Structures are given as structure tokens and as C-alpha cells.
């Protein structure tokens, strides 16, 4: 209180400066920085354009020969030089969907636990484990899948077929272990960390007052999470799921190892499955003539197209969910 009337003053003599002493044109650092970041942005655009051009260029021969019918063609015969890729498209979509069905509830459940329930000392280690799971190379997942997961899946398959064999999804051959189910499970394990990590951050960003508001009305914790927290951040959660889906669609190595790689339309969860990415990876070294190579690149182009279409659909979905609602993400 004693210092209330004293104002801190500089001991140095005041120097009067003019605004024009510092002309805007002398600000070199800012301009260099501006051009650097602009160049970086430009580089990304050029790179992605080149990618698309190269995909078209590489697959041109196959596009000319098979046209758009390549997408629904079901023959892949390098001997007769006839190519069509519908089975791998279906395979890719089905195993990714299966992965989402398994991974989304687990991921969001884990994210809720880490973000809301876990005691402080457990939160750090848990988050670290989740994030390091995301850093494991795909081929390790593949090996683990082949040696550990596939034998287990085989037992499950035999049991399911024995008891529920009348159900179409369980009617396939239950002898391999490898197949749609194994691929879906390994993919689910691979996308769980990324969905969990992003969902956790999104759930933590929900203001505490939302949860407390619901609790104060006499909600149980489960009700407060379901009715206040999850609706509040549903757009962000949808984004996390889509990122997971993106990874599932493009995943190659692990799926090649546990998928079975049979080129046929799948009819059950037990059928061996070929996905687009694994087809390209596994056959590129065997492709001996230019139409074969071109067809494989065409598969890549279709995969690229599907990924983009799914992303656009996801954007529309997100836009629909958040339409007209204010304050969902602050």
C-alpha cells in the first residue's frame, strides 16, 4: 500500500524516435519468412498434383484397354492379360469396416477412461503406451498376427462355424485362420491407438462445466458422459474415426501377411481376402510386362479415388452433424 503513489520510471534519459525511423520496407525478416512458408505450401500442392498426374500416366495403358469397367471386373489373369479389380475393392472396404466396428467402441471407451476416470498418476503411462502402440511398424503387427493372432482366429472360426454355421457370414472355410476376420482384427489393433489418442484429446477439451452441469442435475457419470460430453464433441470424434478409417484403407503390410490374398469375391468372414494395397505390394515385383504394371498402378489410382471419396463423404457427414449447432467446438 505504501508504494501506491510511486510510478516506476526508467533511469535512462528518454529518447524521442520517429515512426519513419523504422520503415516497413526494412522488415526483411518478415518478408523472407512469408516467402518461405508460401513456398512450403506451394510445394505440397505441386507434390500432390504430380502424384495424381503420375498415377494417371502410369495407368494410362490399362485405362485405355479396360476403361472404367476395370472397377467392376472380377478377373485378374496375368496369363490371359485380363485385369479387373472388384474383389480387392470389396475386400479393402469390408476389412476396413470390420476394423472400425471393432476399434471404435474400444478406442472411445479407452479415451473416456483416460480423459475422465483415470487417476492422474495412471494417465501419463497409459497415454504413453497408447502412443507407442501407434509407432510399432506395420510388419511387426503382421508377424505377430501371423504367429499369434491367426492360430487363435482359427480356433474361433472353427467354433463359430460349428455352432452358427447356418449364418451366412460364418459359412466360409474355417481352416486357414488367415482371412477377412484376421485382417479386420489386426487392422482394428493398428487403428485403435490413433483413434484413442485423438479422441482422448478431444474429450479432454470439453469444458468441465458440461460434465458438472449434467452431474448437478442428478446424472450418473455414465449419463453425464453419454448425454453431455460425447454429444458436445461428436464432430471431433467423427474426425478421429475418419483418420482411423484412412489408415485402415491404405494399410498394406500387416494385411498382406494375415489376409490370405486370394483373388475372389468374399462371401463370408472366413474367406481369404486380397486388398488393393496388398495386391500392389505383393505383385509389383512379378509384373513382367507393361500392361500388368499399368494395371497395378490403375489399382493404386482407384484406391486413391476411393480414399478421396470417403474423405469427402466424411466431410459432408461432419457438416451435417454440426449444421446449425453453435458452440460444439469452441
Amino acid at each position, binding site marked *: 500500500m505504501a508504494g501506491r503513489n510511486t510510478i516506476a520510471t526508467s533511469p535512462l534519459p528518454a529518447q524521442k524516435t520517429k515512426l519513419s525511423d523504422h520503415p516497413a520496407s526494412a522488415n526483411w525478416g518478415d518478408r523472407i519468412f512469408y516467402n518461405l512458408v508460401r513456398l512450403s505450401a506451394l510445394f505440397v500442392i505441386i507434390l500432390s498434383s504430380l502424384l495424381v498426374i503420375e498415377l494417371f500416366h502410369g495407368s494410362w495403358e490399362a485405362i485405355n484397354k479396360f476403361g472404367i469397367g476395370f472397377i467392376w471386373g472380377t478377373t485378374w489373369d496375368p496369363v490371359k492379360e485380363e485385369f479387373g479389380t472388384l474383389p480387392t475393392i470389396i475386400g479393402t472396404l469390408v476389412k476396413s469396416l470390420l476394423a472400425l466396428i471393432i476399434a471404435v467402441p474400444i478406442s472411445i471407451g479407452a479415451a473416456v477412461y483416460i480423459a475422465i476416470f483415470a487417476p*492422474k498418476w495412471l494417465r501419463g503411462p497409459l497415454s504413453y503406451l497408447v502412443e507407442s502402440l501407434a509407432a510399432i511398424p506395420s510388419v511387426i503387427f503382421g508377424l505377430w498376427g501371423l504367429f499369434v493372432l491367426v492360430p487363435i482366429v482359427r480356433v474361433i472360426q472353427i467354433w463359430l462355424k460349428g455352432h452358427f454355421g447356418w449364418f451366412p457370414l460364418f459359412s466360409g472355410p474355417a481352416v486357414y485362420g488367415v482371412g477377412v476376420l484376421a485382417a479386420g482384427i489386426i487392422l482394428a489393433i493398428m487403428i485403435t491407438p490413433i483413434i484413442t489418442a485423438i479422441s482422448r484429446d478431444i474429450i479432454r477439451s470439453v*469444458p468441465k*462445466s*458440461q*460434465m*458438472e*452441469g*449434467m*452431474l*448437478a*442435475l*442428478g*446424472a*450418473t457419470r455414465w*449419463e453425464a458422459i453419454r*448425454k*453431455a460430453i460425447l*454429444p*458436445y464433441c*461428436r464432430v471431433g470424434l467423427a474426425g478421429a474415426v475418419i483418420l482411423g478409417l484412412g489408415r485402415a484403407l491404405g494399410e498394406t503390410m500387416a494385411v498382406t501377411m494375415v489376409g490370405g490374398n486370394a483373388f475372389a469375391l468374399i462371401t463370408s468372414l472366413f474367406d481369404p481376402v486380397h486388398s488393393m494395397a496388398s495386391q500392389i505390394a505383393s505383385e509389383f515385383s512379378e509384373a513382367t510386362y507393361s500392361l500388368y504394371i499399368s494395371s497395378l498402378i490403375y489399382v493404386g489410382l482407384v484406391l486413391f479415388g476411393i480414399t478421396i471419396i470417403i474423405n469427402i463423404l466424411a466431410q459432408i457427414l461432419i457438416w451435417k452433424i454440426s449444421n*446449425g*449447432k*453453435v*458452440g*460444439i467446438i469452441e
Partner: protein
Amino acid sequence: MNKRDDQVNNEGTATEERSLPHRRVHLHSEHQQQGEQKPADMPISISIQGLNAYYGKFRAVKNITLDIKAKQVTSVIGPSGCGKSTMLRCLNRMHEETQNGRTDGKVLLDDEDIYDKRVDPVAVRRKIGMVFQKPNPFPTMSVFDNVVAGFKLNRFWVNKSELADRVELALKQASLWDEVKDKLNQSGMALSGGQQQRLCIARTLAVEPEVVLMDEPCSALDPVATLKIEDLIRQLTSKYTIVIVTHNMQQAARVSDWTTFLLMGDDRAGELIEYGETKQLFTNPKDERTEAYITGRFG
């Protein structure tokens, strides 16, 4: 945030002075209806007995014993950080939702200890509702759904027309019906700040609690909205017991029948310094620290 609060408070005081004659007459008549002297043996709603609240090892509220009178407005005042809000949050077991938050002591609601091992905090919160500092309507719900958000909990099936009646009643009790009856299907976020806060009061009332706790309910609002909420609090007192935490002493003087003054002790824990009828506490405080605080010598 802080800057805005200060601004609001400054404006608040200015407007209060301007509209003081009107307010005083209004309040005076209310007090006369209830009689000049309040009997000390009024029915008790919540009886706090030796309450301590902790954050981990730190004790934030120390040994508070206090009887809150039924169907009266009790205000809790005191300088920042003295544990007002913590004490309030102990009254409906919200304190334990805070990381490392725990309590000991008893809080009796109608002679039942809400901290008894067999008591479910969910049941406590349905009887003792709470309104928060910042309006917190649920942004993905319409005005209608916001009001019945609490009412619909723990119910598998609700009658549509009963629901509509309840929404209308709660909004009327919260003096919001006339302003929002045409926008019940709009998002709760489309309302103004003051309307949002009254929406939060309405959704608390829709659960039909006995007690409503208010944690600085006007601190994020402009002066006009503040006055509306204060009027509302006076109306609600005929049916509900209200405990309001406020950092605005004029507000405590205007709206409350009883006032509690808390102060941080040497160990930084909030202690109860004085409790009494609002008029007596503001005009003739028994403790010199209360006098120092209400005359603006600190805090």
C-alpha cells in the same frame, strides 16, 4: 475473461446506483411482508456440522458449522480464494468430482447425512440442484431438451404432454417462458447470456429440488441480466431454499435473508467468521473482521 468480469462488475455497480430507489422500495416491501425480525428458530433445510474440504493435502475449508434456513435465501460472501465455492460444492457432493477433492464432517438434509456411506450422490443432487458461474446449457440440445435434460434422466419412458407441461412450468418459474416460448426448438446457445443462465435455472427447477445452490450466478452477466436473476431469486424463495455464493456484497445485501461471511485463516483454509440475518450483518456486524470487509477495508 477476468477483464470482462471486472468490466461487468463496474458497470453493475454503476447501474445499481442509478436504479437504487426502485430496487430499495421493492426489497423493502418484500422484507416487510416477511416481518422485520426473523425468528432464529425457523425450520432448517441443511445443517452443516464440522465440515472440512480438502484438495489433496490442502485444506480449503475448515470446520464449518452452519444451519441453512428453509425457504430463505442464504448468501455466502468473502474475499477471493476463501473457499466460498468449495463450501457450496460440498453441499451437493460436487466437490468430490474435482481431482483429489474430499471432505469430512456432516451435511444433514432433513436430518439425513448426505455423506453417509449408503447415500448415492446422484440422489443428493436431485434434491440439491446447482447453478454455475458461467451459463452452461448443453449446446447440442434445443431449449426444450435443455430444460428436461435432468428430468428425463433415470426415466425409461416419459409422457410427451407431461414433458411439455413441465418445460412450460419450469420456464415460467425461471421467468423465461415469454422470451423463449417461440424458440423452444432452437439451440440453447442461441439465447443471450442472461437467458442462458435462466435456462440453466429452469433445468435445475425442472428436477424439482428442495435446495438450489448458486455459484456466483451473475458474475458472467451484464447488469440488466443480473437484476433479472436477482428478482428471480426473490421469487423462487417462496418454494425453494437458496444458497448463493457471490463476490458482490451489494448483491448479497439485495437478495439474501441470511448472510455467511467466510475468511481465509492463517493456514489458507476458509473459516466461518460470522453468520446472521443479512440486515443485521451488514448494518451491525458482530465481528470486526466482518465490519472491515463490508466497509471495503480489504478483500
